[in-house]
């Protein structure tokens, strides 16, 4: 808790909201912030550790936000007017994973059971969103190292469904899910003797493409699973 609280304290020192690009980091930071704001006992315990590190903050009034949260709830109108290159004919599967919208008392900006903010964003970008049942299923990221086999099995279920629904890519908002779905895709293909070639892209990349940014600038060439089939569909 103190480790997560450190980042929150650093943000509070500059009086800025903390924007997390990873669901896990977002969740833990938001949890730490909640404890610091609402639990006096916890506040004192953590503050003692933080002041050891040379961080003294007396009150917390910032918020911890997530990229999807900000895009969907703050920048919606701005995005609407600036879409230059709608992604016509692209089918995407939006994968939220676990910690982005759960538990609801910490996150609370979208439904924990059936979140739709990312679907709406993709629709705004002109893409077709497939009905993805596994959108809130866990990819097994936290147990990837210690229970690799089971984690890969969980990841396979998600890839299987997305492929079956005919998605051109999976859109997500968590680097750990990306590690599982993209970097381990080759392992899964080898192990189960299948072939996915399913590009996994971060939500900002999809939004960036719709805004007309060049794929190179967005780093689309840096993916381990090639995004070329996806880009070919957009052009």
């Amino acid at each position, binding site marked *: *808790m*103190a*480790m*997560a609280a*450190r980042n929150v304290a650093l943000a509070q020192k500059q009086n800025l909201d903390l924007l997390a690009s990873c669901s896990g980091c977002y969740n*833990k930071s938001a*949890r730490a912030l*909640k*404890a610091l704001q*609402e*639990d006096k*006992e*916890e506040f004192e*315990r953590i503050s*003692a*550790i*933080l002041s*050891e*590190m*040379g961080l003294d903050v007396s009150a917390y009034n910032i918020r911890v936000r997530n990229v999807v949260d900000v895009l969907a709830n703050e920048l919606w109108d701005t995005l609407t007017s600036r879409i230059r290159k709608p992604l016509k004919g692209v089918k995407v599967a939006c994968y939220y*994973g*676990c*910690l982005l919208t*759960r*538990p*609801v008392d910490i996150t609370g900006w979208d439904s*924990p*059971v059936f979140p739709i903010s990312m679907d709406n964003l993709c629709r705004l970008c002109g893409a077709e969103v497939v009905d993805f049942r596994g959108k*809130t*299923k*866990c990819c*097994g*990221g*936290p*147990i990837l*190292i*210690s*229970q690799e086999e*089971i*984690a890969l*099995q*969980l990841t396979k279920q998600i890839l299987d469904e997305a492929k079956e629904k005919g998605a051109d890519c999976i859109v997500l908002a968590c680097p750990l899910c990306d590690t599982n779905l993209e*970097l381990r895709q080759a392992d899964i293909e080898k192990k189960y003797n299948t072939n996915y070639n399913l590009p996994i892209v971060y939500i900002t990349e999809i939004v960036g493409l719709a805004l007309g940014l060049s794929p190179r600038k967005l780093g689309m060439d*840096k*993916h*381990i699973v090639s995004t070329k089939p996806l880009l070919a569909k957009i052009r």
Partner: protein
Amino acid sequence: MVTTKGKRKFVFGLKQDRLADGDKMNSQLVKQVVAEGGKGAAIAACMQCGTCSGGCTNVDSMDLTPRSLVLMVQRGDWEKVIKSNTLWLCSSCYICTTRCPRGVRPSDVMEAVKAIAIRQGIENDATRFHKVFVEVVQKRGILFEPELIHKYAGLEGVLKQAPLGIQLALRGKISPFPETVKNPLKFSQAIEKAKSCPQPQQPQPQSQPDTPTIPVVASTPAQKNSTSQLVSSSRN
């Protein structure tokens, strides 16, 4: 997968020993878990509906379903809890917590139980990984992946992951050199100190003759073992 091993079964393949039974309830372990997990772990409210098990992503691989785990905690059956692989297969995805109609928060129960188990000195791949993870983070204040893999899986593990690592490094996704936070020494000292600070007071369970008491080794705090334990040991 769950094997039946000739045990008596109730309807729908439910095992007899996993049915709620008021006579067997025992509040001792519940108290301990609640003390560890704080307000989150409202075990007594559980009505055994099984929504948590129904939603669990990973339930197929577990030998005790989340529902049974909560039941065992209600009964104070520590032996069964600690022997099950459920604790280490749970990926803390909070689906159970979100769906629970009674506000039990099974993931928090799971984390509290894990913290108790770790303090008792249980060791397996999961606890080892968490321990190594915290050690690596503590050193520089930031994670350095190659070191993590080396410490956890040895040179063999590094070689296995090397092709992926090289691909990532070529794309500029990971740096081959470790980074640090500002003033890493202060950071690691503070974390070290936090590890040795006393745990929140646990209520002393009254000993009951027919139940095994849980030997709690109080000196090693849960912080030592994982980042998720950092959260679990707090009362939020």
